[in-house]
């Protein structure tokens, strides 16, 4: 099933897009695996998305990188917040 992946803040500049519609293979079953798949062929993207300061949200809930991705419609990669 298609997943919408969102890249916020400086990550959208690294990735070159604010969002992507993707259809990853079955082995992409966690955010960590999704990072590996998205970063294939671009070490810079891999490094940026893997940074410990980057938070991941699945369907608008902040989760760990090893959480299940099954059924997810939207995954977001979020660099450190700077509101206020």
């Amino acid at each position, binding site marked *: 099933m298609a997943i919408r992946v*969102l890249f*916020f*803040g*400086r990550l959208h500049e690294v990735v070159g897009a604010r969002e992507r519609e993707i259809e990853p293979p079955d082995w992409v079953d966690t955010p960590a695996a999704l990072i590996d798949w998205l970063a294939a062929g671009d070490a810079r993207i891999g490094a940026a998305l893997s940074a410990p300061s980057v938070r991941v*949200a699945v369907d*608008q809930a*902040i989760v760990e990188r090893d959480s299940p991705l099954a059924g997810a419609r939207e995954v*977001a990669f*979020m*660099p*450190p*917040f*700077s*509101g*206020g």
Partner: protein
Amino acid sequence: MDAEKVSIRISWTPFDPEAEAAHFRRRCARAGAIATFLGQVRGENGAVASLALEHYPGLTEAEIGRIAEQACARWPLEAVAIAHRVGVMAPGEPIVFVAAAAAHRRPAFEAVDFLMDYLKSEAPFWKKETGADGSARWIEPRAEDSRDKARWAPDASSQGAQRAWRK
């Protein structure tokens, strides 16, 4: 969330802090104490041309709601309002307005202080500053922001965290 107590607004257009304050005050005319905070874009003496703020529609409102709920659980508040600007702003424009109402002043002060610390680092917003020279940079939280937030941890020895407020 206590929807009657908490108001959250994300605005793509400039907001008027005094209109927000007046609206808030009408909601809590019986409160003895109202503390507010207004953040404005700093021009840094002409060095900054503009500030762009992006957010994650849906999640941002939800996370701000969680932060406001924590404040309401921690202090005996009558009402809380948070207005946050997104989009491109010029120096001097309001970015964030936070208000808290309580019977007495200490819970109102502490709640606004807490809300600001958490909005800085726990709400999904991202800031990019464009300089007068055209250079752009993403703003990340300062070490000071983490220290400020740490004051609210359950075991922090600061006065803010030590006080126990009862409803």
